């Protein structure tokens, strides 16, 4: 265990691999970060479509009732109302479940937010398969793809509660449209309060044991970075030099970091709680295929819908849990 900890970056929670690792839903970080952003800049306003509590927008709404708009269950209007507010100088954060916003409002996001150059922040909570028992209707596993393809849109998936808070503060300062996806469940706290966060910067959280000959570079995004880190630890214990890079910003892609990572490892494995098509894995593959062709294993949901279950059952079933990553990386290296 100590051996694995020495591979972790200094700003990663040293308790990460212990059974009593702290956990929290990263949407809490958004809620707290939004209130801080509201204190720092009075132009920040928040809107929600009948999901104020579960998106943690309530923290802002209670602090700044005059700057909060409840639009009811109307996600298409939500996007365009925010665009109108941005046109008058506001910095609107719109929060709903990712399945509904941007899931239902894609054209409004494209035309009235992105094409207008509106300074709107779209928060997609309850993204991914780990939303669990609610089933496939509520499991947004296509959202990265549909947002990534829109010009100008920045796409972010924080790995934990601290990073979500820092990312919220960062996107409030950034001028332009941003999509940030969040998770519902309690997930391990990976970073520390002082960990750096910069839009567009990847971060290596675990560096391979240099004694091992075969190497794999794992690139992950969102809360499944925890699964990637556990898998990385296991692989190093099994004699494979595995590093883990957390890609909090999926777009714009940190190309320099990806290229260097590809050059330093035999193969690349990408991990995301998303379809294998169109997400982080696709982005990494598109880039590397042009500049440094490389074998890339994309781990994610393979062109099927999800189903009800616990987050653990679902991550294992769709092969996004740490055991599947270990198995996938081992096979891929053969």
């Amino acid at each position: 265990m100590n051996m694995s900890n020495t591979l972790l970056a200094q700003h990663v929670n040293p308790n990460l691999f212990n059974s009593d690792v702290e956990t929290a839903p990263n949407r809490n970080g958004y809620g707290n970060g939004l209130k801080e952003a509201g204190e720092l800049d009075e132009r920040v306003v928040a809107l929600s479509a009948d999901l104020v509590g579960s998106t943690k927008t309530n923290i802002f709404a209670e602090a700044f009732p005059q700057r909060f708009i409840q639009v009811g269950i109307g996600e298409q209007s939500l996007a365009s109302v925010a665009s109108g507010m941005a046109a008058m100088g506001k910095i609107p954060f719109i929060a709903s479940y990712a399945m509904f916003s941007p899931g239902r409002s894609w054209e409004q996001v494209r035309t009235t937010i992105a094409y207008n150059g509106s300074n709107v922040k779209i928060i997609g909570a309850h993204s991914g398969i780990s939303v669990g028992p609610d089933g496939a209707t509520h499991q947004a596993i296509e959202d990265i793809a549909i947002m990534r393809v829109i010009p100008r849109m920045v796409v972010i998936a924080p790995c934990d509660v601290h990073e979500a808070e820092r990312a919220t503060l960062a996107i409030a300062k950034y001028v332009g449209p941003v999509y940030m996806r969040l998770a519902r469940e309690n997930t391990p706290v990976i970073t520390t309060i002082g960990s750096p966060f910069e839009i567009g910067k990847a971060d290596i959280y675990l560096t391979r044991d240099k004694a091992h000959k075969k190497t794999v570079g794992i690139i992950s995004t969102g809360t499944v970075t925890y699964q990637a880190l556990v898998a990385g630890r296991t692989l190093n214990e099994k004699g494979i030099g595995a590093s883990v890079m957390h890609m909090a910003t999926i777009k714009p892609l940190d190309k320099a970091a990806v290229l260097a990572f590809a050059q330093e490892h035999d193969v690349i494995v990408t991990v995301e709680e998303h379809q294998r098509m169109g997400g982080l894995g696709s982005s990494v593959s598109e880039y590397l295929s042009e500049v440094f062709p490389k074998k890339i294993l994309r781990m994610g949901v393979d062109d099927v819908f999800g189903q009800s279950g616990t987050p653990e059952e679902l991550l294992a079933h769709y092969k996004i849990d740490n055991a599947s990553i270990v198995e996938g990386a081992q096979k891929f290296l053969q």
Partner: protein
Amino acid sequence: MHYLTDEDVRSLELKANEIRQSVIEMLVEAGSGHTAGPLGMADIFTLLYFEILRHNPKDPFWEDRDRLILSNGHICPILYAVMAHSGYFPVSELLTLRKFGSRLQGHPHKETLPGIETSSGPLGSGVSQAVGMALAERINNPYSSKYFYCLTGDGELDCGQIWEAMMLGGKEKLHNLIVIVDRNGIQIDGYTKDVMPLEPLREKFESFNWDVQEVDGHNIRSINDAIGKAQAVYSQPSIIIAHTIPSKGIDVFERDFRWHGNPPGLGPEDFVKKSEQAAVALKKLRTLNGYINTHEYE
């Protein structure tokens, strides 16, 4: 309330007529685009840009300007024409409509043409944006005297998003928001009563807690009075259902839904040969002194 003398009304009618000519010339030159909506809305746009709006064509980003949000972006030839005639850009630039490199995109793009408040084309999202602007203004300055005008078609009232925005506007009692509906009775596939009946429309809007007026969309004085009344409503947002004649001004094009999406030269051939449509359109353009009675729909 803007008071109009008879001379003012006459002068605005003539201006609207001049703008209709520009619209026809633009569409003929472009070889594509929509005819019915722009001609039908010429009187309302002329009144807005030359009388009602607080704006400065030489300073399109003036902070205290009123905002005009065009929801049905496909009628942008009329928006471009009134903008040019009121001094936002040279009238000669109108002939670049829909051409490569033009600021006059086939559907409006906010960032390329100063004075355009939002990009539009996909229908149904304008009212939401106007609601958002009015909400932001209320936070910025509760005593603001800015008005937010949103222009929509009647066909786009089929869109669910319109009604999401109507509910929010009614809930928030946005008194500085005035929506003008171009009730011309047509949409691309046919007459609105056949594609998707809207009546009773007035009652629909009233039930969403909006102040509703109906007006002859070609009667400058009536429209002016209706806008004045809408500005005076303090507890509700306002909607003005403007009954217009699609393709108003060219009698052989009027009221025919087949002119919705065609330019003169490519329109239906029943009464005028395609090769002669442009010339006929310009020659037969009706002057607009006098009333045009509201026509019946469903």
